[in-house]
C-alpha cells in the first residue's frame, strides 16, 4: 500500500502541549514514528545560573505545573547536600506529605485523560471531580492548587496544623473509596479491559534497554522506584509497596497507577501519624560552598533528576534537569510499531507525557527593540483585543449589543 506521512504538531488541536510527531502509515498501520521535541524549551537551566538559589527554588518549581513539587524538591535536596544542611525531620515529613498528595492529584488527572482518549468521558468527569478533593487539600495546606511554594532550602515554609491533619484524613478516606471503585471498573468493565489490553506493548527487555522510568517501566516488570531504592525526605521511615505489573501494555500502566494511588493513601496516613514535632526548617546560608550533588526524586511520571554544582557564590554554577518524560519518550516509537493509528492517542497518553518538564531552556525578550518587558494581565488583554482588531476581528459592537441586552 502507498505510504502516507502525517505530521501531527507542533501545533495541533488534539495536542495539549507543543510537540511534533511524524507518523508514517500504510493504510491504518503505523510503519514509522518520529518525535521532535524542544518546542517548550524556555531556558530554565541557563536562567538558574543567573539567579540566586532561593529564586531558583521558585523557578525550578515552574518547570512543570503538574509535578512542581517534584522539581523544587529535587533542586533543594541537591543544594542542601552541598551546603551540608540537616533538614529537621518535621520538614522532611511535610515535604513527603506534599509529594504524595501531588502523586494522587497527578495520577487522578492521568486516569481522566486516559478515559478521555478512549472515548470514556464519564471516567474523565468522575476522576476530575474527585481530584478536586486533593486540589482543595493542597490549597488548604499551601495556599495554592499548583506551584505550592512549600519548599525552601533547609526545609519547608509552612507547618501543618492538627485541624489540617483532620481534613487531610477525611479527604484521603473519600479518595480511597473512590479509587476502590475505579479499581473495580478497571478489573470488571469489559470496554476498559478490551480497549487497553494488548495496546502499546513494551516488553520487559525493551523497557530495560530504552531506560523506561516510573509507571511506564513498572508496568513492564521493572522493579525500580527511587523512593525505595534511594530513599530521600522521609521515605526511609515509611512502609510501602512498589507496584509492578507484567501486562506490558496500557492496561498494565493503568493498574500500576491505580495501585500506586492506594499505596499513596497508606503512606499519607503513616506520614501524619509518624510526623515528629519540632522545627520545620533550618536557616540556610545565602552563599553555598563549592561542591556538587546529584539528586533523584520519584515524580508521578518516574524518576526526576537534578544535578547542581555550586561555586561558593549565591548563584549556582550549573543546574541540570532531566524530567521523566525525556527518559520515557523513547519507548513510544517501540510501543507504536505496527499498531493502528487509532491507538496513537492512548499510547502516547499512557506514558503520561509532560513536555513542559522535558523541554526547559530561553528568555523572553523583544528582539526588535532589545527590551525586556513585563506584561500585566490587563496589558495582555488589551494587546490581544488590539491585535484582533488590526486583523479585522472586532467585538466592540457585539459587546455593546450584549450589554444592551443585559440591561
Amino acid at each position, binding site marked *: 500500500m502507498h505510504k502516507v506521512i502525517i505530521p501531527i504538531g507542533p501545533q495541533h488541536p488534539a495536542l495539549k502541549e507543543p510537540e511534533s510527531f511524524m507518523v508514517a502509515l500504510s493504510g491504518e498501520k503505523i510503519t514509522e514514528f518520529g518525535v521532535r521535541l*524542544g518546542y517548550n524549551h524556555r531556558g530554565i537551566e541557563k536562567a538558574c545560573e543567573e539567579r540566586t538559589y532561593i529564586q531558583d527554588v521558585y523557578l525550578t518549581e515552574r518547570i512543570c505545573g503538574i509535578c512542581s513539587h517534584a522539581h523544587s524538591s529535587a533542586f533543594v535536596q541537591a543544594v542542601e*547536600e552541598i551546603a551540608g544542611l540537616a533538614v529537621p525531620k518535621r520538614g522532611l515529613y511535610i515535604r513527603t506529605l506534599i509529594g504524595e498528595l501531588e502523586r494522587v492529584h497527578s495520577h487522578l488527572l492521568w486516569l481522566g485523560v486516559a478515559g478521555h482518549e478512549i472515548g470514556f468521558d464519564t471516567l474523565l468527569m468522575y476522576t476530575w471531580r474527585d481530584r478536586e478533593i486533593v486540589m482543595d487539600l493542597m490549597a488548604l495546606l499551601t495556599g495554592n492548587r499548583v506551584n505550592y511554594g512549600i519548599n525552601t532550602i533547609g526545609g519547608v515554609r509552612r507547618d501543618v496544623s492538627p485541624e489540617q491533619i483532620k481534613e487531610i484524613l477525611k479527604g484521603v478516606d473519600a479518595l480511597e473509596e473512590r479509587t476502590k471503585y475505579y479499581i473495580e471498573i478497571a478489573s470488571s468493565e469489559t470496554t476498559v479491559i478490551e480497549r487497553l489490553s494488548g495496546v502499546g506493548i513494551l516488553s520487559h527487555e525493551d523497557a530495560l534497554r530504552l531506560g523506561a522510568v516510573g509507571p511506564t517501566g513498572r508496568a513492564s516488570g521493572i522493579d525500580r522506584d527511587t523512593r525505595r531504592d*534511594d530513599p530521600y525526605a522521609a521515605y526511609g521511615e515509611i512502609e510501602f509497596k512498589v507496584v509492578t505489573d507484567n501486562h506490558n501494555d496500557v492496561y498494565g500502566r493503568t493498574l500500576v497507577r491505580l495501585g500506586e494511588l492506594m499505596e499513596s493513601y497508606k503512606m499519607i496516613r503513616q506520614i501524619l501519624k509518624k510526623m515528629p514535632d519540632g522545627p520545620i526548617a533550618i536557616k540556610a546560608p545565602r552563599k553555598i560552598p563549592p561542591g556538587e550533588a*546529584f539528586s533523584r526524586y520519584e515524580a508521578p511520571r518516574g524518576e526526576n533528576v537534578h*544535578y547542581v554544582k555550586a561555586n561558593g557564590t549565591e548563584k549556582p554554577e*550549573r543546574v*541540570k534537569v532531566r524530567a521523566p518524560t525525556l527518559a520515557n*519518550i523513547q519507548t513510544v516509537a517501540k510501543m507504536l510499531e505496527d499498531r493502528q493509528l487509532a491507538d496513537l492517542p492512548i499510547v502516547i497518553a499512557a506514558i503520561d507525557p509532560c513536555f513542559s518538564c522535558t523541554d526547559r531552556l530561553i528568555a523572553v525578550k523583544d*528582539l526588535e527593540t532589545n527590551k525586556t518587558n513585563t506584561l500585566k494581565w490587563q496589558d495582555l488583554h488589551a494587546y490581544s483585543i488590539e491585535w484582533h482588531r488590526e486583523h479585522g476581528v472586532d467585538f466592540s459592537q457585539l459587546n455593546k449589543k450584549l450589554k444592551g441586552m443585559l440591561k
Partner: protein
Amino acid sequence: MTREEEIQDSLIKKFNFLENKIRVQRQKRIFAEVPSENFLEVFEYAVEDLGFKFICTITGLDEGSSLAFIYHITRQDGITLNLKITVPKEHPVIKTVMQFFPGADIYEREVMDLLGAKVEGLPAGKRYPLPDDWPAGQYPLRKDWKKPEKAKGKEETQNA
C-alpha cells in the same frame, strides 16, 4: 566495607589510573574523574561488570578552557556512579554510549545543541532541543554565550 567502597576498590583494582580520582560523597553517591581516552573501557566495566544498568542522564559543564561531561549511571540498589570526563573546548569530542544505552541518544543530542559537544558514533537524527533554524556555533549553556543583540535575517543567522 560498604558497597560503595567495594565499587571504589574494584574500579581502582581494574584501572590503576583511577587511584585518588574516586570520591564517595555519601551513601549511594560515587563521583569519579576518568581520563577521556580511557572513558569507554571504564564505562563498559561499570555497566557490564558492576551492574550500572541504567543511565539517568548526561550533564554537560563549561569549565572555562574545557568542557566536562558527567555520565550519571545507576543500579538496582540505588547506588549512582557519576563518571566525569574532561575534553578541551577547541576539540570537544566525546564517544557515544548508545551501544550500552540506545535511549541515551537524546541526552547526547542535548549536550551537542547546548554545549557544542561533538559525539563520535552517534547516528544522524533530529536535533534536540533547539529550533531547526538556530544559528550554528551558538551554544547557550556555554558561559561566554551572549543572547543575540537583535533578531537577524534568516540568511544571516544560517551563515553565522
